[in-house]
Every structure is written in C-alpha cells, then in structure tokens.
C-alpha cells in the first residue's frame, strides 16, 4: 500500500451463492473521485461492503487510507471515513438532535456545529423524528452526518438515489467542495451515471462481478467513440476495435476504440452511460 492511494483492492475475491466478485484490482488515488458503475447485481454494493469491513474477502487484500481493513487499527481509521448507504440506517424513532448526541459519543472528531449547518442547508428539521422524513430527506440527513466528522474519505453507495435533480445537483456541489482539500477522496456508486459523469475523475465499471475497466474519465471518453454504420461496414471492422454494438432497422451503432479504427471514420462522442450500456448489451448480443 502506498500513501498516495485512498483505497486499494488487490486481487480481491468474494464468493456468495450464485455470485462471485472476482479478482478485483482497484486503486483510488488520494484527492480523487471515483465512480463505481454497473448494472444491478454487478457487485457494487459487495465492493462497498468489503471496503467498509461489513464483509470480508475470501482472497486478496484491501487497504483503506493506508491501513489493511482486517486489522484492529482499522477501527480507528473509520473515524476518517464517511459512509452513506443506499438507504438511511438510523432508527426512525430518533430525531436529528438525538442522532447528533449519539454521533458525539461515536466519532472522535464529530463536529456538531458543522452538522447543524448541514441540517440548515438541507432544510431538515432538528426535532422531527426520522420516521416523518421523506426518502430524499433521509438521504440528505445521511450525507449531512457523513460530512460532519472530518472524514478524509467518503464511501457513497447510491447516495443520490431518491433525490430530485435539484437536490442531486446541490449534493454534487457539496461533494466537489469536499474534494477541494487535496487529501479528500470519494468513491461513489450510482445508477445515475450523469451525476458521476459530472463529478468523477475515475470510472470503474463492474459487470457480473468482474472489473471491466478502471480508467480516468476523460481518457475513457477520449478512448471510445460511437460509429453509426451499415452491417457490411461493421463486418469489415477490426474485432479488437469493437467494444459493443446495437442493431436497428436503420443500421448499426458501434462503440469502438478510436485508435483502432481508421481516422477517416466519423465518430460521435461516447458518454459514460453509452460505454456501459454498449459493453453490457453488446456482449449479450454477441453471445
């Protein structure tokens, strides 16, 4: 493990009945934001569980903020990790005020002032029980708590789901703000790829428990393009260049690696969502 990486997964494998996360190698450099994408059941939540220590790998090693997450030392390191899961896990019978008191007794660096400021910013009542909060309010509440103990690393599992576009945009800005400190990092998994496209420096793509790629977002967008062509033209393409394709009555749309097709071809830019969809669906079509 180097001090430059906020997260390192080395050859991590985790087997469940009917699912296997296989040989994952992933590195998140400190100060960066990485988006974890993939369809339902691809292994995103399993990866998050492994990182937080909620589940243990069958093989491989995981280091978070420079510490092996199977060691006792990791319990203290968790003071520097903010986690937001796909739903708020606080008791519905507690109020934000009570959660504040609870967190003061859990986190060494709990910042009550910061927490109250976030509650105000998100327009969340202090004395209302969480059971009376909407899903969006609960997610905002979870984010407020995750940002209120001087965390250096945020692990966000579908943290923006349930939020309306305006609230999501606001949250994305807050995450940006968080990474202004050069040693602050974020790993975020989301189905809403447009959020990740705005936010992330790196994109890791999981599919059926395997890591397809983990690359810089800009490099990824430069690497791939979409070619609209006929079936005959498609068949003439170098197979190595094709990452996925779709057929329609009007022709074909092919996700290609720009470097592997003739420069005379006119390619449309490929977004992260395009890359993900073409790779998953293209594979299915070929099979």
């Amino acid at each position: 493990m180097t001090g430059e990486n906020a997260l390192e997964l080395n050859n991590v494998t985790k087997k469940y009945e009917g699912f296997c996360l296989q040989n994952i190698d992933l590195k998140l450099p400190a100060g960066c934001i990485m988006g974890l994408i993939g369809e339902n059941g691809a292994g995103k939540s399993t990866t998050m569980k492994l990182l937080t220590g909620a589940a243990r790998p069958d093989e491989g090693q995981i280091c978070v903020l420079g510490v092996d997450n199977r060691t006792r030392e990791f319990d203290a390191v968790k003071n520097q990790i903010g986690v937001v899961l796909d739903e708020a896990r606080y008791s519905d019978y507690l109020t934000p005020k009570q959660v504040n008191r609870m967190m003061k007794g859990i986190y060494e660096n709990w910042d009550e002032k910061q927490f109250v400021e976030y509650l105000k910013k998100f327009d969340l009542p202090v004395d209302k029980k969480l059971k009376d909060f909407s899903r969006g309010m609960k997610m905002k509440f979870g984010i407020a708590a995750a940002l209120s103990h001087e965390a250096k690393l945020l692990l966000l599992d579908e943290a923006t789901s349930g939020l309306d576009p305006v609230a999501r945009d606001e949250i994305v800005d807050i995450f940006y703000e968080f990474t202004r400190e050069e040693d602050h990092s974020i790993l975020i998994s989301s189905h809403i790829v447009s959020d990740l496209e705005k936010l992330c420096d790196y994109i890791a793509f999981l599919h059926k428990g395997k890591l397809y790629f983990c690359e810089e977002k800009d490099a990824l967008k430069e690497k791939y393009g979409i070619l609209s062509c006929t079936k005959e033209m498609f068949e003439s393409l170098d197979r190595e260049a094709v990452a996925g394709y779709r057929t329609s009555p009007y022709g074909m749309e092919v996700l290609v690696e720009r470097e592997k097709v003739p420069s005379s071809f006119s390619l449309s830019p490929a977004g992260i969502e395009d890359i993900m969809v073409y790779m998953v669906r293209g594979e299915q079509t070929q099979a």
Partner: protein
Amino acid sequence: MKGLLYKDGYLTWKYGKSILLFTLIWMVMMVWTDSLFWGIFPFLFAVMNTRMTFSYDEQTKWNSFLVTMPVSRKQMAEEKYLLVFLNIAAIAVLEIMIGLAAALFSKEVWLTADTLLILGTGIGAAFLYSAIELPMIFRLGVERSRIWLFGMTILVFALVGGGAAITQSAFLSESGMVQNEGAFYTAIVSVLAVGIAAYVISLFISARIMESKEF
C-alpha cells in the same frame, strides 16, 4: 460505545416508562398475594426491553451501517450486555425502593429475607436468561430466535421462580423468618453466581459471533 448506549438507552426508555408502571403493579400484587412470582416478573421485562432494541436495529439494518463507524465488533456486543446490566440494575433499584416505601408505610423492616430472595432469584434469572438469549440473537437475529426464546423465557423464569418458591417454603417461616440461614443464603448466592458467570461467558461467545459475522 457511549453513543450506542445513548441511542439504546433512549429507545429503551420509550417502553421503560410502562415497565415502571407494571413493576409497581406487580409489587403491589406481590405484597397482596404474598407470592414471589410477581416480584420476579419485572426482571423478565427488563430483559425483553433490551430485545426490542435489537428489533429496532434489524428494522433499519443498523448493524450494517454501524460496522462502518469507529466501533469494534466486540464493542457492538459489549454495549448490549451493558444495556441489559443497566436494565436489570434499574429494576433491582426500583424494587428496593418500592420495598422500602412499603416498609415505611407498614412500619416494618424493609430488607427482609423475602426481599433478598426476590432480588437474588430475579437478578440471577435475568442474567441467566440473557446469557442464553443474547448470543442467540447475535447469531440468528430477533425473528429467527424468537420461537426458541419464547419457550426458553418461560422455562428459565419458571425454573428460577419455582426454585424461589421452594426456597421460600423450605427456609422461611410464615412470618418471613429464615429457618436455616446457611442453606437459604447459599441458595440465593448460587443462583446469582450461576447467572453472573453464565453472563460473562456469554459475552465472550457473543463477541466471537460478532467478530465472524458478515453484514
């Protein structure tokens, strides 16, 4: 652990208020009917009250979130044991206070052999029951352990309550005087010792269960 204790303490207090009322009613029943049975019951509720905090935790999948916080798995187990201990202690103090109030009212000695028998067997039964209950909940969860625990609740408290009744009739005269002090106090201390020893061993078992658990 302080934060967890605050959370569970608050949730326990939500129902603790009604337990206070029931304890009062049972103590009145105990004095009225001269039956130890009523005095032991509040301890059962002290234990069940803690089980409710497990239910709340399961409802929101709290443990899968808690494990991401700077709390060790061992501490997660220890906190619940401390909570049970505090609940039992609270009921014991409450029963002593009620006993004291009743003694003041009737102008009798408050710390009678009867009171000692109730406290000893109640506390012993509560610890013994929790010693079995807590590892089962940590291992199986509240729902899956419920059927087992329902039968066990009746069994443990009936055994200890029955034992207390036998002790009462064997060692106490009708006026509440101890007839064989050595055997009487040995019986009380034995129940307490077995309960507390089982409780401490149980804590180690629960901590090990939590260490190996995945969320």
